């Protein structure tokens, strides 16, 4: 069914189609519409879930953890400061190996107080053991929530589905809402590992001595290793049953590219527009590598695409202070043991919700093509110097 919907409501539809059973939520701009629509679904019976209003994001995740431990499919959504407040429980969810799916609407961290987008909130959670999927369209948002549960419930790690504030969360576009019967076929009811048994009650999250905690952390990395093939399988299954596919990364028009832009989120779709125009003009030496899955980082897949290029322009809507763009660091690290690597250009742009326009992307392409090497470690795009 075609539906005009915002990125936020696309999240809600995704959770509804996934038949989430427990939704604990605390509203925060720009995420609020997600829980508004979900609470409406719950109130009207469109979604048979327990909707919990809690008093903070910390409790949101605590409640989601409880629900997931008890065997319920748990969903929530947050943003920026809310995600930061959740941080302790974010670790708990991953260490507890709980297949919770959460949408994070990227919001710049305060101060300066902001409700606009950049990726520093979600990227500050990159090492917590959560799988991260960055989306560029409303359709991808809905589909990624559904895929998120499929992946999470296979590898027992939580999944964060990430979308840009306002640029995606509050803009409307037509999406194809999958038939819930097909979604049911793709995503059968969650059958939790038999962990919580009232007749044989065990202790959760208790003290683990150095004798064994090391091994438990090892198991998380083991699960992360499994995640890449599992995510590819989940995407293939999605294609088979629901007709769409995204890949964990996507090489766009890279066949003849010697310069490749590395993008994530909505900057990908802006870049597609620019690249499409260039290709239409016959200029086919520029392509895009979209990174959809950031955790686990698909290093092998990234290297396979980028090693064909001479120059790689990584566009980061985030900054690891003291280092540079976080995506750029990860991309460079992926080439760590390779003998040969392309020249890396690190562009930082759009921080704090500043618009990233086709003109900016064109500027990035122009700079990369006209420079043999970057003049600076970080090339700031649109900075008021």
């Amino acid at each position: 069914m075609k539906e005009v919907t915002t990125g936020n409501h696309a999240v809600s539809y995704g959770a509804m189609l996934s038949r989430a059973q427990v939704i604990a939520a605390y509203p925060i701009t720009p995420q609020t519409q997600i829980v508004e629509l979900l609470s409406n679904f719950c109130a009207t019976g469109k979604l048979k879930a327990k909707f919990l209003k809690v008093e903070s994001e910390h409790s949101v995740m605590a409640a989601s953890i409880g629900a997931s431990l008890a065997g319920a499919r748990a969903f929530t959504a947050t943003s920026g400061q809310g995600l930061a407040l959740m941080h302790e429980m974010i670790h708990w969810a991953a260490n507890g190996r709980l297949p919770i799916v959460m949408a994070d609407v990227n919001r710049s961290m305060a101060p300066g107080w902001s409700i606009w987008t950049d990726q520093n909130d979600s990227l500050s959670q990159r090492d917590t053991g959560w799988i991260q999927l960055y989306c560029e369209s409303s359709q991808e948002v809905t589909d990624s929530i559904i895929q998120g549960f499929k992946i999470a419930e296979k590898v027992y790690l939580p999944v964060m589905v990430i979308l840009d504030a306002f640029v995606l969360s509050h803009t409307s576009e037509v999406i194809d809402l999958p038939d819930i019967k097909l979604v049911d076929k793709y995503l059968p009811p969650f059958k939790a590992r038999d962990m919580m048994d009232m007749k044989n009650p065990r202790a959760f999250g208790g003290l683990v001595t150095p004798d064994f905690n090391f091994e438990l952390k090892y198991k998380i990395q083991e699960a992360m290793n499994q995640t890449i093939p599992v995510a590819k399988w989940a995407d293939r299954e999605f294609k088979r049953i629901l007709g769409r596919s995204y890949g964990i990364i996507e090489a766009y028009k890279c066949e003849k590219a010697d310069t490749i832009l590395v993008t994530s989120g909505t900057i990908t779709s802006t870049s597609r527009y620019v690249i499409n125009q260039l290709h239409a003009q016959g200029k086919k030496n520029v392509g895009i590598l979209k990174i959809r899955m950031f955790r686990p980082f698909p290093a092998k897949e990234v290297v396979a695409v980028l090693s064909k290029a001479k120059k790689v322009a990584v566009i980061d809507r985030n900054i690891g202070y003291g280092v540079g763009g976080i995506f750029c660091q990860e991309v460079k690290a992926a080439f760590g043991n390779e003998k040969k690597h392309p020249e890396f250009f690190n562009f930082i742009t759009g921080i704090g919700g500043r618009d990233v326009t086709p003109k900016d992307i064109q500027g990035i392409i122009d700079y990369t093509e006209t420079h043999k090497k970057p003049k600076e470690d970080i090339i700031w795009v649109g900075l008021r110097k």
Partner: protein
Amino acid sequence: MQSKIKVIPTTLKVKDLPPTAISMSNMLFNKTGSWRNYKPVYDEKLPPCNATCPSGEKIQGYLYLVKNNKFAEAWQLIKQDNPLPAVCGRVCFHPCEVECNRNDYDESVGIHNVERLIGDYGLRHNLRVKIGIKKKQQIAIIGGGPAGISAAYHLARMGYKPTIFEAERQLGGMLQYGIPSYRLPKNILQKEINSIIKMGVKVKTGMRVGKNLFIEELAKKYHAVLIATGAYKERNLDIPGEEARGVIGALDFLHEANLPRRQAGSGKKPTISKDVVIIGGGNAAMDAARSALRMGAHPKVIYRRTRNEMPAIPDEIRDTEEEKIDFIFLAAPVKVITKNNKTVALECIRMKLGSADSSGRRKPIPVKGSNFRIKTGTIIKAIGESPETSFIPASLLKDNLVCTDKWGMTAQNNIFAAGDAVTGPKTVVEAIGAGKRSAQAIDKYVRTGKVTHTEIPEVKPVRFEQLNTAYFEHAPRVSMPHLEFKQRVKSTKEVYLGYKPNEAITESDRCFSCGVCNFCDNCWVFCPDMAVIKKKNKYEFNYDYCKGCGICASECPHNVISLVEEKK
């Protein structure tokens, strides 16, 4: 099932370990109850409605039953304490609703409206109460008003066959002859009385003390006698001209106005002038004014203080105002103006309010030279009543009231007294409560020869602050359907029409169930240790594992769970 803590051998490998930090074996050996400093206990408390009800109705109990669509059970519960629920549902001043904790939230629960429906349900379905083992002792009850009927009913439940001696032709007292039928239809009263008579109560009407009935004789013939003669002697105005034709007492007026035509002494309704004036601010004044209105008059009510000090119950004042009856406040009568011994006008004086008097209300003080006259042919006095005590042995009296201990026993052992004769004029439900208590005392007395009683310690009812109102939704009180003004003045039809069963269920669901468990499951849901065990119709704590965190107590909406310090 229980296991002991195990030391995990370090030979275990990654694959042997659980996926996350979960104990390898179950934790039942770990009796966390030993950590407890405070122990939760199910400790039901007294709801304020029940605490306030003069006849001790278990109001929360019957609201819970009605909520669950159990009307017959609700009727049985109410009848344990009150023989006249259909009557009280209509005329009681419902102090329960004043005390209802819901007042602090939105509006009190419409208890009397539900009570009325339960009473009517019992009448419609001819429900019967269970009668105890037959008892031989003979008991005489003088007076068939609310106190006498209540005592007779409770004695009948215990298995006695008491005899009521009534001066009038019919039982009911003030209910029959004082309260107008637009507030209490006669057929409802009659049905409720009949159902009590059917329980084995003997009734002798036309028996007036001092005329054809004598207390001392009864005391000799019967094992016990209850004086429940009420308070119906009207107070006088003590002003010139009071003896004139056209000046009548409110009770006499209501008595006549209430008689069915064929029974009225004179064979017709009392005649009043269109410009009738009623003096007083109590319930009798309101009833007289509203009855006069229904007889085609344009009554005026004169009261010496202001609306704030009126002793009538607020509902009655509101209804009277709704019927557009004129009030003249801060005015007191000084003289009845007569012509040929016929009333033609009432001279009044303006009053102002001084400082508070012994009743706590501000004392009215006449304003010199402010006299004024109201043209009227009929003046109805409604300034209060007192018990008629001329026929009662002086040894039983004190300050013109029958003197008893708190169980209703007078100076003479087998003579008891209850109701307005003891307290002076009070309300129906207080008389019903007094009748119930005296029935219990009489039962004890005739079986054992004395009335012994254990002192019941005063229990504080649950207050609003003690409830966890997070679990209550705001909900408006279900309004009571009633006749509009135009329909009211044309007839003596009942003004209030009564809840429908679904309305009563909705209204009962608003009850906070203060201090009483209504099986909401909160304790069971919230206990982090699974230490609340749900059984049929109750919960229990598993103290082996209850850590005493107190979450159950704080999440109980009804203040049923108390925390008691552990003595170690």
